[in-house]
């Protein structure tokens, strides 16, 4: 029971990270109907920027954790936002096709960065059993809270703000949106930028959570987030969260009860099974509002 609860906590944390990345995939897809294949790389860039920032701040002697976290988040968000904007500008707008930056990033994979000192230490006991104590670290709590807050924020942004309305208008009828005065190119750019910002947050969180970032971890997490977006129904925001959560949980429980080697195989197998029975993903029926 305690062991189960511990896996639940770990799974939810992982799921939150996947969900964060997945929202970026799903939002861009929902609005322009194209998979942003650069998203996985954008998130990796967020993670690398985070590592560099942590190191720089450490050298500068800034050690107050909340301040460090905020600075790192802001810097990664700004830089990846710029990068996301550039990708849309130079790759998507003229080509309107998929574009991969993986080769560029894989060139950087030699740059495996050495483990960071754990930044956010400590945690608390959730439950003490006879043989096993269930712990949740503060970091896990931060990750989950952050994801929930961003999820709520983005849901609100898309449902109730002028930008969100313009985004949905672009998704439903781009020509009509422009006839009404929506600057559709800018709306699409902003969608990429928002996706990149989410990816940056996820990148920072992964860096903190694993304490190390290399190409393999990042690539795999990006791939799983993409899986999560498809599993939940690409184009659906709640679907991305649900997909992320499911994949996080499957991974945690599979590693705990079966074999850690095959956890990734399990994740992708579930995707295949779901898509056989529900080709549009769990929440992605044509009736469900995209984005």
């Amino acid at each position, binding site marked *: 029971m305690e062991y189960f609860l511990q896996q639940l906590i770990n799974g939810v944390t992982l799921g939150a990270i996947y969900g964060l990345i997945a929202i970026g995939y799903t939002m861009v897809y929902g609005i322009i109907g194209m998979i942003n294949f650069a998203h996985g790389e954008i998130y990796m860039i967020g993670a690398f920027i985070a590592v560099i920032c942590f190191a720089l701040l450490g050298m500068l002697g800034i050690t107050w954790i909340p301040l460090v976290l905020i600075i790192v988040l802001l810097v990664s968000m700004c830089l990846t936002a710029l990068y996301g904007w550039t990708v849309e500008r130079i790759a998507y707008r003229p080509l309107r096709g998929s574009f991969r930056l993986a080769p560029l990033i894989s060139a950087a994979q030699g740059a495996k960065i050495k483990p960071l000192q754990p930044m956010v230490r400590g945690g608390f006991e959730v439950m003490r059993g006879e043989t096993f104590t269930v712990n949740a670290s503060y970091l896990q709590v931060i990750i989950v809270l952050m994801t929930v807050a961003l999820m709520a924020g983005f849901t609100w942004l898309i449902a109730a703000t002028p930008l969100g*309305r313009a985004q949905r208008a672009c998704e439903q009828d781009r020509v009509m949106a422009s006839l009404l005065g929506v600057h559709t190119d800018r709306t699409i750019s902003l969608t990429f930028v928002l996706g990149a910002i989410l990816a940056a947050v996820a990148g920072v969180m992964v860096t903190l959570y694993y304490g190390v970032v290399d190409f393999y971890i990042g690539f795999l997490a990006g791939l799983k987030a993409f899986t999560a977006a498809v599993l939940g129904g690409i184009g659906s925001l709640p679907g991305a969260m649900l997909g992320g959560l499911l994949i996080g949980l499957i991974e945690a429980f599979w590693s705990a009860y079966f074999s850690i080697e095959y956890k990734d195989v399990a994740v992708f197998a579930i995707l295949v099974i779901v898509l056989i029975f529900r080709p549009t993903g769990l929440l992605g029926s044509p009736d469900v509002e995209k984005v």
Partner: protein
Amino acid sequence: MLVIEGVQTFYGAVHALKGVDLKVGTGEIVALIGANGAGKSTLLMTICGNPKPRYGRILFDGDDIVGIPTHLLVRRGLAHAPEGRRIFPRMSVVENLRLGAVAADPAHFSSDLERVFGLFPRLKERRDQRGGTLSGGEQQMLAIARALMSRPRVLLLDEPSLGLAPLVVKQIFAIIEEINKRDGVTVLLVEQNAFHALRLAHRGYVLVNGQIAMTGTGQDLLANEQIRSAYLEGGHGR
């Protein structure tokens, strides 16, 4: 107010407009009639910059607007309720109207909303219903209302009567007349329903195969034998 000179538009190799000249004066209702495929919708879309004309000039308030991005034209006072209504299907009536007001001063929104609800009380009853679930007539009302939310000086209307019951057609035409008379909105009206359109319009143009074949006052065109046989008695087209 709106002057079109020698406009030619192509879709790839298709030569859709072959040199169109047309004028709409301030406060006028001008009808544009023509058979299917004559290029009526193409002309309205060309005015809005999508597609762009290959040759010719389009003057709005004396400025050549060719090349100005579509989304900026509505800020100059040009609104378009295009062919097929193009209601955002997964948004409520009010959200559709909010999008109509994207280019307008937000301070006007609630008074403008009341104004279009006054014109179309049906829309007020359905304010939270999704656009995609409205009836055809309601969608047409919404398309016009949405265009009015930008407070246009010139309104382009593409076949507002298409597929509607005679009673609804009458209502729609009455409202077009009202916004023209009461609010002074200039209207360029594309119609298959030539009889109604020419009766309502001050002037009319007949477009045949991407070229203006005839022009005159609404009365003259209604009385013209050729027009009667081509567009009125036989119903639509030729």
